[in-house]
């Protein structure tokens, strides 16, 4: 990514981490993303021979999937927030779909580490020890959703729960071995409470579906999980009656949305770089189009927006580091909304700079453009989150 000269500085260790990461994002992730996007059927992305597996393996070799899991449990420990968003930007620069998938893969284990009951602690430790990439997580957690009827239902049954219901649009649905989900806990007396289930997904009563057509983030399609009375042990489920679930969930989605903001800011940067390079090369009217004032103005406005999105998310991280996350939900929603809008706008403008070539599959821009849109609505529609988050002002 160009224009890094005023990024908020990080220490030498972090710079080394980012450098290693960049070898992966440039050398492995971007080309794999383009290849996966071109699969004839979305489900092919998850075939045994798919390059997707190589991406997962190479990413795990960097140990960044263990970030935010405490060292006691074998994790990486905390990473400073600025390094975190700079890393996420680079992932988004390479491929938004894969970026989100790679990170979602750690989600249930990070939550397990945080809950750290004996069973959950074990699960997290297992994940840290998994050098084969055999454990892959997925998640569906929406703390702003108040209606318990919209969640998976977990019926108390024997010494465990029976889970039923379905979850559409789940990242890693095709390949996840474990998941962390909002559940509506129905106890024997029919009273309902909110819960969080961190469960294995190897039960035959779980089915998975990948849509036949996918346009946005085709390199890593989401899918639907269906649960038909899936039995899970009691220790896999916690209730808001026993733990401060709301705090845990909010802190989880703050982290997730900050990550998404950085991913989409990175995607905007990717489109900007392509457009700039093209504008200096492409001749029209006898000169490179970069010579035309209107083209430079258009590029400047793309630059301005992309850098504003990056600034918003970097500042969010810099502020977090000092002051804790709890009061930043509104700013986080704003940063994610800004970044997703910016990615949608800048990828579209970049296509416009490319002209007809921008529309063609041969160039990466049209993929960037398709990928960006999901950012406005995934894990909560921006506007709905915003209208809700404003209530805290």
């Amino acid at each position, binding site marked *: 990514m160009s224009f890094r000269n005023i990024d908020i500085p990080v220490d030498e260790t972090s710079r080394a981490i980012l450098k290693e990461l960049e070898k992966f994002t440039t050398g492995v992730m971007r080309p794999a993303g383009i290849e996966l996007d071109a699969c004839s059927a979305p489900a092919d992305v998850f075939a045994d021979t798919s390059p997707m597996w190589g991406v997962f393996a190479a990413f795990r070799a960097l140990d960044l999937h263990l970030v935010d899991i405490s060292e006691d449990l074998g994790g990486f420990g905390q990473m400073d927030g600025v390094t975190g968003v700079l890393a996420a930007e680079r992932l988004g620069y390479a491929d938004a779909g894969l970026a989100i998938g790679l990170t979602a893969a750690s989600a249930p284990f990070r939550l397990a580490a945080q809950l750290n009951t004996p069973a959950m602690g074990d699960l997290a430790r297992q994940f840290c020890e998994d050098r084969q990439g055999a454990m892959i997580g997925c998640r569906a957690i929406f703390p702003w959703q108040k209606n318990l009827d919209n969640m998976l239902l977990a019926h108390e049954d024997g010494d465990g729960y029976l889970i039923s219901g379905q979850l559409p649009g789940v990242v890693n649905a095709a390949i996840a071995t474990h998941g962390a989900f909002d559940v509506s806990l129905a106890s024997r007396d029919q009273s309902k409470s909110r819960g969080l289930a961190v469960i294995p997904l190897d039960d035959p009563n779980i089915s998975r579906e990948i849509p036949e057509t996918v*346009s946005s983030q085709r390199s890593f399609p989401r899918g639907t999980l269906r649960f038909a009375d899936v039995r899970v042990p009691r220790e896999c489920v916690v209730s808001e009656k026993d733990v401060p679930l709301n705090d845990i969930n909010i802190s989880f989605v703050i982290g997730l949305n900050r990550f998404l903001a950085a991913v989409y800011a990175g995607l905007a940067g990717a489109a900007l770089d392509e457009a700039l390079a093209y504008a200096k090369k492409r001749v029209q009217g006898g000169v490179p189009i970069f010579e035309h004032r209107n083209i430079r103005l258009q590029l400047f406005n793309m630059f301005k927006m992309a850098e504003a999105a990056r600034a918003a998310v970097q500042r969010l991280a810099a502020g977090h580091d000092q002051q804790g996350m709890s009061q930043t939900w509104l700013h986080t929603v704003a940063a994610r909304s800004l970044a997703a809008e910016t990615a949608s706008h800048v990828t*579209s403008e970049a296509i*416009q700079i490319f002209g007809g070539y921008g529309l063609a599959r041969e160039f990466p821009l049209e993929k960037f453009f398709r990928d960006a849109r999901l950012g406005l609505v995934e894990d909560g529609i921006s*506007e709905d989150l915003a*209208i809700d988050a404003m209530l805290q002002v």
Partner: protein
Amino acid sequence: MGYLDLGVKMGRKLTALQETAREFGREVARPAGIALDRLNDPADVIEEKSVLWDVFRGFRERGLHRLMLPAAFGGTMGKLPSMATALLAEQLGYADGGLAISLMVSGMPFSFAMMSSHAEIRNWARDYAEDTRGEMIGCWAITEPDHGTDWIMGVSKAGSDPRLAPGLTAVKKGSEYIVNGWKAAWVSNGTIATHAVLHVGLDDSLGVHGSGIALCPLDLPGISRGKPLNKVGQRALNQGEIIFDEVKLPEKYMLIHIPGVFGANPFGHAFLGAANSTMGATFAGLAWAVLDESLDFVRTTSREGVLLADREDIKIRMFRMFARVEASRLLARQAADHFLAMSAGPVSSVMNRFKATYWTVGKSLHAYLNAYEKYAFVRNLAERFDNPEKPHKLTEWGKYGVASKITATETAYDVAGEAVRIFGDEAFSPQRPIEKMLRDARASMIEDGVNDGLALATYESI
């Protein structure tokens, strides 16, 4: 609860046409467009059993292709009010933006054929009118890999810069032209067309202004096609390269054989305006479709127990979508109609019944071109059209065609983007055409000229 046809007198004929087009769109084009969009390989779009051919046949069987042809050749032009063309384009765009382009451009060489001085070529128009099986398919072969916006700049003085000269050239050799070069992958119907309106470079020193126009059958030896373009939107629309390698083109096919005649003059503006006003009507139709899909969605979908249409934010966003769509639809219709109405009227609707009319048109054009080359006074006369103090009415109008295209395509794109945000995850569901409509609209802002390029080229005529 309903839309008004502001500024249009919807009589029986227009209503009937609109109803036919709407039925075709709803039953044939919309579902076909959605199915074709899903094919991952654009070669599948044009394979023999593709639903694409049902679309072509359905359009022709309903006689909708005849609207662009005069009665003399079996068409219905002039029998309907001039607003008919805009209403048809709007309905086609409402059904599917990509297929709309495919169907409309398909008639272009055959409409142009009527201006030929050769009866054989003029009769292409009749053959096309009668072809209900979709065996004759036209394309507009103008854009080149290295010359996109350059072509558009042709309507401005900047178009005479030799650096803008086309890459595909035609050199006269005896009674033939030798054609070499290639047309870009963005030529609509490029790999399926049987005939082309082919822009060729005749005199490089005059830049774009040095080009001529041939009506070219695409089965001549030396013509080959590229692979169908794989692209972000309008995936139902076939596009692809046409490559000319030492093609011998008999001179009868060269409609405009004198370079420099068109360019920064009223005809250039009219040509640009005409192409763009059809684009405008088409994508105003797409914008309208987005509005209807969205209204239907918010009125039938609840979130957190509340109907979306009962939320204040959604109501306001929907009203604003309505206002934008209707403004663009109105501009598109009026801009397209204004041009067609110029040449319509009682006289022309009688004249266009007779083949002799077109014999005269063809011969006159040919004679004019020769005179233009030969006599300075003709060239001087032509230059007077160019008076910026008192511009020709075609120049006055051309900018409205361009304004309509820019407005409609950007409205379609913006409202589709807004709809995606309202639909949420649902926008990406295969059951909903919304995300597809966004991609279709995305392409339209480049099709027929990058919008900023069109603005740049047309600015002087404001």
